């Protein structure tokens, strides 16, 4: 066994470069031509296909699969991208097992759906080195501000640009892409795909990207409303929930979203430091991703602790299995009580609790060199339209209560917090904005 793995504390380079490259390679390797044809042949070309209904962006799945099977992957890509301009990323990150592939009739028939996600990737990968397939309508002279360059903002901006409007896409970070760039697990977006996809998307023209500009810090909603014909808010959930009840931070605790962002931006995984013993607190996709990637970086013991039962975890069974297969230990029904230093390590104390969070009185503690908290993200901005349950209240087509302002993606009420939902909401709002600007 490699000594680096046993080394106490938080350290870089626990695994050698080959192991790291292997660990952070594609979770689902792409299909080659032959595999794609075999997979495509399984599609029944269903009428009013259930897979299509299950896709938040309503991609015409039977049509694009038929286009693959008849040897026209670029036509397939266009079918996908006309509904979902981030079809390439969605093919990599969508939890297909709870979306299209769950609904696939071959799932009903033989428990083995058509590999829609992989086929979507096959088609869209063909498009990435091709000329941009969409063009802009005649210029309308209208100007729209889109705040937040994540999936929702990018999707909205692209559709508005197609309709001939001039879009300014603001983002508080120094790079566009949102969680595609900073959040999604590294093994879902290899080879800098998030960045390449944004570059490809911007080829439509008419979108000017302004990074380092934050709503609430320099940019004001009132100012934007005055300067632009419409505003679309897609700022995601920038804040994170704190572990302690009074909102203060516990010592030794890092927020998992920041850890993942650091990892995603690292050009060399051997430079990302990781503990020998890692404890992740939370039960959603972020918790799983932090735990799995800790393991892939070479942490010896990774324990994910969730306060309720397994069936209440937001991470899908597929994600839970993935974590288990990588060696992450999952403990459920245990709520964190606090953190103490003991020698060179932290001790995280937990108390067992039932599904309604009633403590049983039994306690245990886990040693940790690193503690990641992943107990949910929240809206983090001022000057927003009317909120509802911590999100921007939106009605039909993403209209907020403030005239001329739309919102979509994670920051807006309704819909699951998924990349594909954000893309759908961005496109739908763009169509509504376009209709209003034309009217």
């Amino acid at each position, binding site marked *: 066994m490699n000594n680096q793995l046993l080394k106490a504390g938080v350290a870089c380079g626990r695994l050698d470069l080959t192991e790291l490259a292997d660990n952070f390679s594609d979770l689902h390797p792409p299909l080659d031509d032959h595999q794609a044809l075999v997979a495509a042949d399984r599609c029944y*070309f*269903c009428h*009013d296909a259930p897979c299509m209904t299950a896709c938040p962006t309503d991609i015409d799945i039977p049509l694009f699969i038929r286009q693959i099977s008849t040897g026209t992957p670029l036509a397939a890509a266009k079918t996908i991208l006309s509904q979902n301009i981030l079809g390439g990323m969605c093919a990599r990150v969508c939890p297909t097992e709870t979306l299209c592939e769950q609904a696939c009739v071959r799932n009903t028939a033989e428990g083995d759906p058509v590999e829609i996600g992989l086929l979507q990737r096959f088609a869209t990968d063909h498009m990435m080195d091709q000329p941009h397939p969409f063009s802009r309508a005649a210029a309308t002279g209208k100007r729209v501000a889109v705040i937040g360059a994540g999936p929702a903002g990018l999707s909205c901006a692209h559709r508005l640009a197609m309709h001939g409007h001039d879009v300014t896409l603001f983002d508080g970070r120094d790079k566009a892409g949102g969680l595609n760039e900073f959040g999604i697990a590294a093994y879902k977006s290899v080879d800098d795909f998030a960045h390449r996809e944004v570059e490809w998307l911007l080829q439509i023209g008419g979108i000017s990207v302004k990074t380092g500009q934050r709503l609430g810090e320099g940019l004001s909603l009132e100012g934007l409303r005055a300067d632009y014909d419409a505003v679309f808010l897609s700022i995601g959930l920038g804040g994170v929930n704190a572990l302690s009840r009074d909102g203060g931070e516990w010592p030794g605790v890092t927020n998992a979203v920041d850890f993942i962002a650091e990892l995603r931006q690292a050009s060399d995984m051997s430079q990302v430091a990781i503990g020998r013993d890692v404890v992740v607190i939370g039960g959603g996709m972020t918790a799983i991703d932090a735990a799995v990637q800790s393991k892939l970086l070479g942490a010896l013991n990774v324990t994910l602790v969730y306060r309720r039962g397994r069936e209440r975890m937001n991470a899908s069974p597929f994600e839970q299995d993935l974590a288990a297969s990588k060696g992450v230990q999952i403990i459920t029904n245990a709520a964190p009580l606090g953190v103490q230093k003991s020698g060179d390590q932290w001790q995280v104390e937990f108390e067992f609790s039932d599904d309604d969070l009633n403590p049983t009185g039994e306690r245990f503690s886990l040693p940790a060199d690193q503690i990641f908290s992943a107990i949910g993200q929240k809206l983090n901005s001022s000057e927003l339209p009317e909120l509802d349950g911590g999100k921007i209240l939106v009605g039909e087509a993403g209209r907020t209560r403030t005239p001329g302002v739309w919102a979509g993606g994670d920051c807006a009420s309704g819909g699951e917090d998924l990349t594909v939902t954000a893309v759908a909401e961005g496109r739908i709002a763009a169509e509504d904005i376009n209709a209003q600007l034309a009217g």
Partner: protein
Amino acid sequence: MNKLASNFLGISSPNPFWLASAPPTDKEYNVRRAFEAGWGGVVWKTLGAEGPPIVNVNGPRYGAIWGADRRLLGLNNIELITDRDLYTNLEEITRVKADYPDRALIVSLMVPCEEEAWKTILPLVEQTGADGIELNFGCPHGMAERGMGSAVGQVPEYIEMVTRWCKEAYSKPVIVKLTPNITDVRYPARAAKSGGADAVSLINTINSIVSVDLDAFAPVPTIDGKGSHGGYCGPAVKPIAMHMVADIARDPETADMPISAIGGVTTWRDAAEFIALGAGNVQVCTAAMTYGFKVVQEMISGLTDWMDSKGYDSLADFQGQATPKVCDWKDLNLNYVSKAVIDQDKCIQCGRCYIACEDTSHQAIDMSDERIFTVKDDECVACNLCVNVCPVEGCITMKQIAPGQVDERTGKTVVAEHGDWTTHPNNPANIAAE
């Protein structure tokens, strides 16, 4: 007891599965392997007259069409008859027959349409000890341009003439292999019978262009930029072959003539169907060329198990059972009414039945908001399209509406009596009308 034991024209073989005259039977090496794998008999690759052997193209000679998952459905070829020396073939035939006395070995022949040519080769074949000959009047490409193969098979008078020469000069059974590239197969079959043939075998391959290369703008297979039509075979041609076999089996003039059925036999079931239509045995080419000789094992076990399940002890027990059920359209009972029924437990809700019926047929399937598909009895004409497009076997079936019940589509009570077109009131030629 071997239930599959076959006796065709007095030639016995352990099963009714013979390899058709084609590449699988081209030489000793292949035929020995075929017999070891379990084939009941072979028809040796067609021999031509003595002299410089036939030449084949040196480019591709096959083309194909495929179904889902690239399953080969139809094969097209431009191969000619054997391109090996006549005497080499005859020696090999002699050796193989001596080593496999229990297997059927038939020699396929194609020589120019002259009496002398046939009477020269037949004694040579007789000496090999082979069990019989098959006259290749079917090859539709290449040889036909030289006045042989299907060029003979398309002229009943020639068939009769050549068959008669062969019967005169050869002592063992003579099988005439027919081409499907004609309008009515009964005429060549009758000609073979008049010439004294012991049996007919059919079908040989069908004239075809299997695809066009859209870069070269030339038919496939393409040889130096060009392609010629080829012969089509494999699963795709089975329906055509079955129709022709049935036509001969139910023609009063040829009903008593044994038939060796060929064309798309791929599984035991295909073989059983041909035999039920009246064939005495079957010949196989494409299935062997697609999967190798081992496929015969499935054919043997499948046919045996099916016969066991039906209580049949010999092929004769079911041979021809379906022949009398093949009739003309005018004899079909128009008073028989059925409706499609969807088994909701089997339905996977793909909606294919719905869209097929809605767009292209009778708008007789209802689709609910919950994707439950049900047949509207008042619209269903029982066309069977939904059954054919449904991906789940046995999910949609046709249920008879019993006499006495009302057909909701027509509002009429179903009657028990047979009533066909010959007596139908709408038939201007209705014999019973006045």
